[in-house]
């Protein structure tokens, strides 16, 4: 019976998140517009400026649009993870988070369910983006569209857990602008989403190191390889470990006896 309780609660949380996402049409569209602008405008303009050597998983010369696509999927998930954390701060300010926190289930389980719900939304967005990219002639082997699913789940969980961790520190909604400037943008630009590592190394050793150890880079590489039916073990382990660390820290952050909640005077 206990297991059934957990299942029903998790499904309830996921359903609520998906329903909200599907019914909030503006959110759905704006989540897609951002990466599409990058793909249609930025990548098209940048194509001529950046020469790309053949590097795995690619077996031939590729257009810049092809290179940037996994990075943009990562971007969708990064923004979605932060959006989930924004909604957690909003829920906490508005009080609806309290309803979740006073239900008779362990807090780690509730946070994990929230995270799965957010990841489900980001996977949905990623597939819609891939479908549009397909019509734009960015086409991967069909197996890639299956292999990418577990990769998207893991990368979505990792970025969502980071968002969750941040939300345990953010006191007010207004502070969220800081997250944009100090987390989302540095993570995105100091990664392999826009340029390959060897290209970054040519310009700066420091940037190269930062990009290499940036968990977002690893998530993007995991997605990139999976889209071409290949498994990048290093990226997988790195992303998995980052997920475990972020999740553990978020659980501590939301624990009433150890976390930030008491100091912040809100839940």
């Amino acid at each position: 019976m206990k297991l059934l309780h957990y299942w029903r609660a998790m499904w309830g949380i996921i359903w609520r998140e998906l329903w909200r996402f599907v019914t909030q049409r503006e959110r759905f569209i704006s989540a897609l517009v951002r990466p599409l602008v990058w793909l249609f405008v930025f990548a098209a303009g940048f194509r001529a400026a950046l020469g790309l050597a053949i590097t795995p998983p690619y077996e031939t010369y590729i257009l810049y649009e092809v290179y940037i696509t996994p990075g943009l999927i990562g971007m969708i998930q990064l923004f979605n993870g932060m959006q989930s954390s924004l909604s957690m701060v909003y829920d906490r300010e508005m009080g609806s988070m309290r309803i979740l926190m006073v239900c008779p289930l362990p807090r780690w389980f509730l946070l994990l369910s929230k995270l799965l719900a957010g990841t489900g939304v980001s996977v949905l967005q990623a597939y819609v983006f891939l479908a549009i990219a397909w019509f734009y002639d960015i086409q991967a082997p069909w197996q890639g569209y299956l292999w990418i699913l577990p990769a998207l789940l893991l990368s979505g969980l990792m970025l969502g857990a980071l968002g969750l961790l941040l939300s345990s520190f953010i006191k007010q909604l207004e502070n969220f602008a800081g997250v944009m400037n100090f987390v989302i943008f540095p993570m995105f630009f100091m990664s392999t989403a826009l340029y390959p590592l060897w290209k970054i190394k040519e310009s700066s050793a420091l940037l190269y190191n930062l990009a290499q150890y940036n968990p977002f880079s690893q998530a993007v590489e995991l997605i990139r390889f999976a889209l071409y039916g290949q498994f990048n073990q290093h990226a997988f382990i790195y992303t998995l470990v980052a997920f475990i660390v972020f999740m553990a820290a978020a659980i501590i952050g939301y624990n009433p006896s150890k976390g930030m909640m008491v100091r912040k005077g809100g839940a």
Partner: protein
Amino acid sequence: MNSSIALSVEDLSFSYGGKKALTQVNFKIQPGECTVLLGPNGAGKSTLFSLITRLYDTRDGSIELCGFDIKRQTLLALAKLGVVFQQTTLDMDLSVMQNLRYHTSLHGMGRKQAEQRIQQELERLHMYDRRFEKVRQLNGGHRRRVEIARALLHKPSVLLLDEPTVGLDVPSRLSIVEYVHQLAVEENLAVLWASHLIDEIYPDDHLIVLDKGQVKANGTVDEVLKITSTPTIKDAFYTLTQGGQG
């Protein structure tokens, strides 16, 4: 475990950093009893509620719900609890039904049982016909009714209400006050109602006056009047809180 005690708070103290919010708070609430927690703004009522609902950690003292310690037996204790928070906690973009179903899923209720309980609670509050409306379309009084219905869906033994009538018009306020008093008797429910509005107290209520984090009086309305040698609750409250707002 004493089954006749629904909520027991013992030697409870709490501070935000160095600032004391509650000092040595003690009281007990029995089933079928409506207890009004009266205190001016900033008395510590919301802090006390956050501790009872385990949003904050209990460091000094203990809280038991139906004999379950909130710190050591958290899940068993929380299962006995229904809460209506001061701020509305409904999802405005979902319908009444969707909000309530979400709550039943968090409490592990199956579809059939959930539908049955939702119907029962909404009908009691004359809200069943409006179950498919979005919460955003409801007025403040009706939203409060939905929140009360939600808090009762899983049949709790203790119902906490944190200033649930704030911002409501007089008829809505009166109907909610009456409904909750009726619930305590009919459902044998232990009710803890935080308020700073004196007209929400009924003569048979149990009264706890909290001020600056301390319990200033704890007893029936008559007992509190006797202790303070005052003719009305308003005077008693004024005496106990030395002119605090109310």
